């Protein structure tokens, strides 16, 4: 589905993404993890042809994304609020996106009806423009508009970040279901529980490089926690923490 070759992006002398080779096969569900500044969003933007890489290229279905528009037909993505047209009402936005994919209004209405639980009565027919919605609700609009497009490739950047726990669980199920029907999913998150739950394959990024590429198993979560946990590298600080504890518990 996606092939990345010698991809490199440099911002003011610092290499922020450097991926010699990566292939994501059709139907895979891939999770992207890494601390802030690891290059996750930059990678997403390059896959979506929103920034020009210094070197290398991204192929989607064996066609470079740069200079082609065919990938737009089967790719749905939500990275941030900049993807939403904020002066439209949610309904207008959904009709617009549906219209781009030759869907009738009735079809969009049917689709939206099936998302009533997900929206929790806070999105539709509330008489608000998208810009007046809370960040979490904007995320919901973005995710739903992705699903509306019946994509073959779904890309979400930190979709769990602003939404409530119930919606997080719903979203996990939505991504899993989509994956079962053959949709390739690429999701980034800071929530290790969610990401290991949803994805079959985890890519761990650090300073622009993919340093781990693991097929999810029962031990993956522990492995990731070990990477992100602080203090494991040098024991003394851990024991120092223990010494402070009794004082704090006065």
């Amino acid at each position, binding site marked *: 589905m996606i092939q990345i070759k010698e991809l490199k992006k440099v911002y003011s002398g610092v290499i922020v993404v450097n991926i010699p080779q990566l292939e994501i096969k059709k139907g895979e569900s891939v999770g992207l993890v890494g601390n802030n500044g690891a290059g996750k969003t930059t990678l997403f933007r390059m896959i979506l*042809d*929103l920034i020009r890489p210094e070197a290398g290229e991204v192929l989607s279905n064996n066609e470079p994304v740069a200079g082609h528009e065919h990938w*737009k037909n089967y790719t749905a993505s939500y990275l941030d609020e900049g993807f*939403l047209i904020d002066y439209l009402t949610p309904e*207008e936005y959904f009709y617009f996106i549906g*219209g781009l994919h030759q869907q009738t209004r009735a079809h969009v209405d049917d689709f939206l009806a099936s998302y009533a639980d997900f929206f929790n009565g806070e999105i539709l027919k509330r008489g608000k423009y998208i810009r007046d919605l809370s960040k979490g609700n904007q995320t919901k609009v973005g995710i739903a508009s992705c699903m509306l497009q019946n994509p073959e490739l779904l890309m979400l950047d930190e979709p769990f970040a602003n939404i409530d726990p119930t919606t997080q669980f719903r979203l996990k199920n939505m991504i899993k279901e989509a994956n079962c029907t053959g949709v390739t999913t690429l999701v980034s998150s800071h929530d290790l529980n969610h990401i290991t739950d949803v994805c079959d394959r985890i890519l761990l990024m650090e300073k622009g490089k993919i340093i781990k590429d693991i097929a999810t198993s029962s031990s993956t979560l522990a492995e990731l926690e070990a990477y992100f946990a602080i203090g494991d590298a040098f024991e003394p600080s851990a024991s120092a923490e223990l010494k402070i504890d009794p004082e704090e518990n006065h």
Partner: protein
Amino acid sequence: MISTFLKHELKAFWRSKNTGKNIAVRIVMAILILYLLASVAYIGFVLDDILKQKLPHNELVPFFCGIILVYFLAEFFSRLQLQELPTLRVQPYLQLPIKRNTIVGYLALTALFSVFNLWPIVLFFPFIFKVILHDAGLVTALAFIVSILGITILNNYLALYIKRKANLNGWIFLIAAAVMILIGLSDFKWHIISIRNISYLFFGHLITYPVLALVPILLGVAMYFLNFAYLKKNLYLEELSTKKDKYKSSTEYPILSYFGSTGDLVANEIKLVLRNKRPRSALIMSLFFLLYGLFFYPNPALRNNEAFKIFVGMFMTGIFIINYGQFMFSWQASHFDGLMVSKVNFADFLRGKYLLFTASSTLAFLLTIPYVYFGWRVLLIHFIMYLWNMGVTVNIVLYFANRNAKRIDLSKGASFNWEGVGATQLMLSFLLLLPPLIIYIPFKYFGYTDLGLAVIGAIGLTGTLTRGFWIKFLEADFYKRKFTILEGFRNK
């Protein structure tokens, strides 16, 4: 604390992402303001000489007393439109241990740093020093100075108070403007009241009772505290941002559905214009410019000047293209990423722009048909300029749109908002207005005016008929610059 706020604001200015471009604009503005200030200072300095030439010496001071209030009324009217509300982005300070009075006091005090507060000093003080000090003595001169400063402060805070109120409710601005116009009319047109007499009533008595100078200063201070209290009462985030809880309903434009996805894009853009303050002001300005002909056509000196009619005709039928189009695609900056990854063909996107401009220009042409009152030839010129706008102006505007990568914050007002304006835009305005005249003037020089008009019309028509070619050209051009544009739009 106040110095910290000042430092923060300076940093906010210098570290803003497009400071470099801003500075160029600000320097131009500063030069303009300095020039204006120098002109006013000159007038202020020679005011007594000018008046001496027109009036006998004993009417000099009464006349001066009479014009002060007239000036302040005019100043108040322009303040209402142009003076900017001082804004400290208070949000990050509200939860910190900083007294509310400090924050509010800062907002209220910095309001005094406005060029408007310099005008009266520059304009009136030389006269006071040269004439009143000489004629009536030091105490009276001081009384005049204090009064004028008092009224300046009063004007300053009254204008800001009304603007703040108007920010929450647009009608207040209209009512205030209507009251000002009515006052003006009832003096200069209907002669019911005389502002000059009222002004003389006060400033004339000031000569005999200098204590009266306390009245304006007290009024000014009272107005300051009214502002202070109002700001303090409203220092809640919800109310500072002017959100209204009105129900926003979905709209559709059935006619546009005939145009498929291009029509959908145009529908979105119409909503963009109608639902955001700045493009809406651009639209209202365009409607206002449709009256342009009324200022020029009745003027007998210009009646036979066809070059001028070409200029006016081009302006009236194309003003929306110029006004709105020169900030293309910045209007959509906040969701341009979204447009780029969604299934929008860029050629369709461009076709949408053409459709929008065609519709606006056609509408403008239809609205200017009544100008046929000034002769059929006026209508003919309008039509030719309409063709020109359709075929040429549109292409130039879109060509420059590919060279514009500045983000626009849609929610801000338009007057004196230079955001998104740069050398490219200024150049564009000239480029748009000049070519038809450059074509026409040689023909006129040799006496073939009809042929000149025909050539302009033919070029316009050719441009319209070859639109397919221009779309391809602009699309290829866009893809060369896409990433620069996208990066610029992401820079908040």
